[in-house]
Each structure stands twice: as structure tokens, then as C-alpha cells.
């Protein structure tokens, strides 16, 4: 029962975050870049969380920052899941030599630490936010390919797949109508858990300055507070709000992910959370 409350609570939290991101112009009292006060003001009724080193309203930045942070997480997770589902199904269904080669390549790539690889790779591309999210989506899809492929391997040998061939279905039809719906629960689990993972990673990358530091997201906000004296001066209202916001969404997504996983995968132990 408490597990159910946890799941629904997490879903409510997630909806609130998404709602805030969508309605940012209505909620935020000021623009994300507008200089609306003196630098380093303490919280007051006009500036709920005070102002930063150039006099921008931190509360408004927090609200606006939800957009880019969430968009980044969900976009790269969506891309990651799309790639891993597509390749996982194709490799698992056709098998053979291509599958063999692809699996060996995946075995080589998986042990490479994604975060470090990403930092190296971004130096080769123009480090825009879109580039980084595409790279993250692609890199994190590799593990997903392996998971989905292994599931498809067992589904593709089910008798109803043979049966679908016997009614004259084409390979595409079988993959789309019979295999995809059967791996969908797993795809959902992958989507939720990778969006949590990638969202946090995105905040980390933005903290490290992987893209334009004038972009307003929670990573750059923390970075700003860190480098412009927010920590040194003990201005907790500057650094804590974006940090807590990240922890909140991350926990909510993790809880949803675990609950889904328990529901769809009976082999996952019940004491995982």
C-alpha cells in the first residue's frame, strides 16, 4: 500500500514539475535574463529567493530553468529509448551475423564510462545543448539495445510470431504489430529510468559548462552560485533551490522507474527501494 502511495506521490510531483515548466511565463514574476534588482539581494517579497551576482531574480530563473532541464532529460531519454527499441528489435528479430557483430561492438562500448566519453566527444562537436543531448541519447541507448534485444530474442521465438508468419505477415508487420507491443512495458521502464539518469547527468554537464553558460537551467544556476561567491558568502537561497529542485525530480522519476520495473519485471526484488 505504501508503495502505491509512493508511486502516486511521485507521479504528482512529476506532474507539478511538468506543469511549472509549461506554465513558466505565467508563474515566473520576471524574465530569466532580466536584471530586476541590485546584485546579491537577500530574499524579500519581490525577489522570493533574492537575486544573483548580476541582479537577476533567482526564483524566476528557477522556474524558467525547469524548462531546459526537463526538456533536456526527456529529449535525450526519448532519443535513447527510440534508438534502443529500434535496434534492439531488429537485432533480436533477425539475429544472425549482423546481430553477432553488433553485440560484440556493444560489449566493447558498454564498459566505457559514459560521462567521460561524453566530455571527450563534446570537444569534437560544437558543444551546443542540442549536440550534447543527442550525444547523450545515443550513448545511453547502447545499454538499452542490449536489454531490449535480449527480450526480443525470447519473444521472436514465441509461437504467435511463427503464427503471424503463417498468416502471411511481413517482417516489418511482425516487428511492429507483434513484437513492439510485447516489449512496450520494458520500453516504458527504460524511458523513465533513463530520463532520471540523463536529467541528472545533464545538470552535471551543464555545471561543468558543456554548453553556453548564459543558458538558464539548474546546472548553470548551481555553477553560477558556486563560482560567483554564493557558496563562499553562505547565500543558501542562491544555491539550495536549484539543488533541491534537481533532487526532487530525480527522486520522483527514480520512484516511478522502480515501481514500473517491479510491476513489469517480477524478477526484481521487492526490497529494492
Amino acid at each position, binding site marked *: 500500500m505504501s508503495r502505491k502511495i509512493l508511486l502516486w506521490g511521485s507521479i504528482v510531483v512529476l506532474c507539478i514539475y511538468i506543469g511549472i515548466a509549461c506554465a513558466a511565463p505565467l508563474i515566473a514574476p520576471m524574465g530569466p535574463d532580466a536584471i530586476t534588482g541590485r546584485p546579491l539581494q537577500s530574499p524579500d517579497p519581490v525577489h522570493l529567493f533574492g537575486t544573483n551576482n548580476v541582479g537577476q531574480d533567482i526564483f524566476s530563473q528557477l522556474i524558467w530553468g525547469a524548462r531546459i532541464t526537463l526538456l533536456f532529460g526527456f529529449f535525450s531519454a526519448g532519443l535513447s529509448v527510440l534508438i534502443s527499441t529500434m535496434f534492439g528489435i531488429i537485432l533480436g528479430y533477425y539475429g544472425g551475423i549482423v546481430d553477432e557483430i553488433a553485440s560484440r561492438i556493444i560489449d566493447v562500448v558498454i564498459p566505457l564510462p559514459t560521462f567521460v566519453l561524453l566530455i571527450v566527444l563534446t570537444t569534437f562537436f560544437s558543444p551546443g545543448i542540442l549536440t550534447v543531448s543527442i550525444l547523450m541519447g545515443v550513448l545511453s541507448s547502447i545499454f538499452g539495445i542490449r536489454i531490449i534485444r535480449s527480450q526480443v530474442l525470447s519473444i521472436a521465438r*514465441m*509461437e*504467435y510470431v*511463427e*503464427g*503471424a*508468419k*503463417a*498468416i*502471411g*505477415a*511481413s517482417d516489418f*508487420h511482425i516487428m511492429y*504489430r*507483434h513484437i513492439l*507491443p*510485447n516489449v*512496450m512495458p520494458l520500453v516504458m521502464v527504460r524511458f523513465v529510468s533513463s530520463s532520471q539518469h540523463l536529467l541528472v547527468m545533464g545538470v552535471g554537464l551543464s555545471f561543468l559548462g558543456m554548453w553556453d553558460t548564459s543558458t538558464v537551467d539548474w546546472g548553470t544556476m548551481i555553477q553560477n552560485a558556486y563560482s560567483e561567491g554564493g557558496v563562499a558568502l553562505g547565500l543558501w537561497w542562491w544555491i539550495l533551490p536549484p539543488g533541491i529542485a534537481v533532487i526532487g525530480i530525480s527522486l520522483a522519476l527514480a520512484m516511478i522507474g522502480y515501481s514500473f520495473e517491479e510491476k513489469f519485471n517480477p524478477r526484481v526484488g521487492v526490497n529494492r527501494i
Partner: protein
Amino acid sequence: MELIRIDGLYVAFSTRSETVRAVDTVDLAINEGDTISLIGESGCGKTVTGMAIMGLLPTNARITGTIRYGDQDLLSAPDSTLQRIRGKEIAMISQNSANALNPVMTVGDQIAEPLLIHHLLPAPEARQEAVRLLSALGFDEPERAREQYPHEFSGGMRERILIALALICNPGLIIADEPTSGLDAQVKSQILQLIKKQIDGNRTLFLITHDMGTAHFLCTRTAVMYAGEIVEIGQTHDLLSLPMHPYTQGLLASLPSAGLHPIPGVSPSPAHLPGGCRFCTRCPASMDRCRREHPALIDAKGRQVRCFRYD
């Protein structure tokens, strides 16, 4: 009119160390309106023969021979041709098992699927057709059954759904592979009645079974298969009342009604077949010649039998 003619069908599966001859030189003609059964024990190659007609053998199978269907050879036809034929002209009633139907697709959608794949009807009409067929196959509430998922049905009902799936495009030839396995006696007889009613003179049935009673009930002709080859073929009634090949005789003697006398020994591994007659090691009437020479299928008393005793 001849519908399908199998000539010299040979199917082997190669493993690293040995070659398994699953089907070895099977010739069989199926006429339009025929009801013919292929009887044999597990592993004798009867299912592989059915799969060969459907063109659904695994890619590691080595296949020679021809299966003529109209002006096509099904063994060498391209996939696109086979996809056009499968389900529409030749359909299969698959073995009933928990995984025979897609667990996440409603029964109605699955039954209507062949019609949509072959572009025979637009979706709303296809769904209506599925409902019509469900009610013809004994579903009391076809409108409700259409919306349900396979796990909500019993084994007998699932078998009916599989039959609907095979019948929906009104195919000329139906291949039924052990359609009643895993069903209890009463449900089994209902399903057999149903198949008989649906076949009823205007469809061709190719039944694969190990059960004499099923073959007798549904089929006018029967072929007995042993270790990858046909050993006896004739009218079902004649064959069962007066079996000629020692293996057929053994099969009948092993029935409970005949006193449960099993055939001694086990059937040879298809990887290591004996040189002469394949049944000689278990045959009560084997002669020297049986061990040396491989018998051919010869005509005898209106049927064909693969035994030197009728030479």
C-alpha cells in the same frame, strides 16, 4: 484437380558434428477437396513436412525437392510470393499452446489480422467478419469475445480462435498441426466436429497428427510416416482396418483398445539411420534383405507400402 504436389522433399538440419535427415524423399500429391492425414510419432518429420509447405522452415534447414502449387514451386518461391499465399490460400491451424496467440492483442484484432494483411477487407468490415466467424465457431457472445485477450479463454476456446484465424481468409488448403493436443476428450471431440463441419467437402485438409482416431474421423486418406519417410499411404479406412506395413500394424497394436502392445525398441535417430529398411531393427518380420536394401514405396492392393513383404 491436383492442388499440391510434393516431389522428393528432403529436409536436413546440419549441426557441427552430424546431419539430421528430418524428411527424406517424401512424395505426396494432395488433390482439391482431399482430406489427408500424416501420422507418425514425434520426430518422424511430419511437422517439418507441414512447415515446408508453408515455407516456414528455419534458415539452417537444407531443403531439396519441389512442392508444386499451381505454377509455383513453394520451395524456391521468393518470400513476397509466399507471404501472399500464406494465410490467404494456404493457412495453418497451429498447435494449441499458451503462446499460440499474442497475449497483448485482442482476439478480434488477431482474427481480423489476416484480412488486413492481405487487403481483403477494410478494417471495420474485417472486424465484423471476425465477429461473424466467432459466432459460427460457437462463441455465445462474439461481440464481447472480440474485445477480450487470449488469457481470458480456456484451452478449447483458444483452439477455436486459432481455427478462426486459419479460416478467416477462406483458404483453399488448411494445414492442421496437432489441432487437439492438450485438450481433454470432450473438448477434443467438439473441436474435431467443428473442423469437420468447416472443412465439409469444399476445403482441402492436410492434418498432421499422431492420433489414429483423429485421422479416421477427419481424413479419407492417410499417410504413415516413419523416420522421415512415408511407409504406407492409402484410404484411411482400409489402412486402419487392414494395416500392411509392420510399423502401421505396430501402431495399431499399441492403441489402448488393441491392448497397449508397444512396438519394441525406439525409432532410430535421424542422424544415424540404418542402411536398409529403417524399421528393420524393430520389425517382427524382418528378413536378411531388409538389413541390406532400402525398400521403395510399391503399389499393393490399392495403396502404397514400403515393405519387401509385398514385393
